[in-house]
């Protein structure tokens, strides 16, 4: 039933990998106790650099409602510059979680009734050996910290599967590092 569905809305920029990140999280959720998993990018065209949204719904039962998320439980922001362009917390449920990639810590967002989780994913991912600006795997670590519904190991496995032999290690490390360094409110 839809009431028990966890709704996660992702905000990123075209080309940043929000879809891949959501997909990896969704796949791990599916294999770890959530038969109902539905993920969709915002309906319409995607343009490189322009803000994009991804809806991810996770449930213990089959999901029938495929409409885009309007009241998210969790909002994931891949890049704090999006805060200027989009009202990322629009419709967020009271007490909902806001996960942001930012070097500014909690100072990045001032709003009531939202639990904030921040990490400097950009920096941590670089530290893990990824090219600057690759944040989609790192942010998974932050989300896993803020919303511990899927074991971290499962997520790291899913990242490995997604990227294959050559690029897996740095991406897994980015998620692990971020998971460790995410600051929770």
């Amino acid at each position, binding site marked *: 039933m839809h009431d028990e569905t966890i709704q996660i809305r992702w905000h990123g920029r075209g080309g940043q990998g929000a879809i891949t990140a959501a997909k990896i999280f969704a*796949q791990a959720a599916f294999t770890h106790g959530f038969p109902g*998993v539905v993920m969709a990018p915002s*309906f319409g065209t995607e343009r490189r650099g322009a803000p994009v949204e991804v809806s991810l719904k996770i449930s213990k039962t089959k999901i029938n409602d*495929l409409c885009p998320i309007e009241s998210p439980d969790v909002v994931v922001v891949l890049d704090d510059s999006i805060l200027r362009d989009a009202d990322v917390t629009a419709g967020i449920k009271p007490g909902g979680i806001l996960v942001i990639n930012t070097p500014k810590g909690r100072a990045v967002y001032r709003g009531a009734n939202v639990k904030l989780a921040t990490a400097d994913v950009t920096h941590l991912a670089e530290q893990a050996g990824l090219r600057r600006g690759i944040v989609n795997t790192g942010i998974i670590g932050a989300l896993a910290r803020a919303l511990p519904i899927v074991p971290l190991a499962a997520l790291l496995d899913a990242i490995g599967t997604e990227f294959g032999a050559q690029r897996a290690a740095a991406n897994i490390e980015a998620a692990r590092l971020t998971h460790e360094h995410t600051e929770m409110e």
Partner: protein
Amino acid sequence: MFVFESGNVAAAGAVKLARAKVIAAYPITPQTPLTEKLSEYVDNGTMEAEYVAVESEHSALAVCIGALSAGSRAFTATSSHGLLYMAEQLHWTAGARLPMVMCVVNRAVGAPFSIWNDHQDSISQRDAGWIQIYVADHQEILDATIKAFRLAEELCIPVMVCYDGYYLSHTYMPYEVPEQSAVDAFLPPYSYRHTLGPDNPASLNTVTLPGGRLDIHGEFAPGYMELRHSLDLEMKRAIDIYTRIDGEFAKTVGRGGSPIVQTHLCDDAEYVAVALGSMASQLKDVADTLREEGLAVGVLAVSMYRPFPGEILTAALAGRKRVIVFEKALSFGQSGALYSDLRAALYSCDTKPIMSNYILGLGGRSYKSSDFCEAIRQSVARDSACGDHMGWIGLNR
């Protein structure tokens, strides 16, 4: 094996499993990821097929017409304007009795341009002589597309598998992919009675007289009208044949059940919501919610829209208090097409339900479950003396 992929990839997977040999396609949103995926399968050798990158949808179906007539299983997919650009080819395919399977990724039709979902494209081609199947999720996309090849080839009638643009095409969800061996056991290699070639010299689709005519052996051959009559008769058999095919699919692949219409909480329902495609799936949640409020609501998904399963629908809906039809397409100046068809089917029953028709989602206009709840409550609350009615959901006025 379960995979987590988009609806377009589910469709591509079905075509691969069905071992289509000729694929012709022209890009149009939101169909593109489907045919891109097929071109990838062909290029990387995981699928043994010819991929013809044509210069228009009209040509896409022309290539398939050529391929099917020359003895190879063919596939294309399109959306919206692409489907309408194919319009004459659609009729041609059906008239030629070619066992074509095509996915229609439903999208609104311009002008003005809209790349978003509604059902106007395929609904406007409901009279082209194709079987139309509307599916509600990725598993149904995959299963129906495989079954469609069997159906098309048994009946020599083309089949459109229609699924919602974005809601299904670009949405990811888990679905189970059958083993190739199971699909092979279910779907025999392609054969077509009229396959052209030096061994069977014939001229297909020649000008046909209004009346019949003697053939070269002095036997009476039918005219155009008999050929049309035959198409109509054969198409009506699709309901029974698809039900049988679904049973065989269940045996070999392990899934199936109700391929023509699907019901949810219908047994004791006083009010039944009817829809095509992914809306029907969403209505299950709506019915669950309204049941909690004490309203005896059920849902009926029309999976096979052409041929129209009038008898099955009449049996399912006669005697209900209300039937509420939700549609993403219009026959302008009339009502939703499904509504008119359903209303005509129910004309013959003694206890006719009162009917409501709600139009929503045109050009991708957003809707949510609460909109359906509200519409059903509104319909139920209407004085039955007022009779049938039509309304719009989400219209800004």
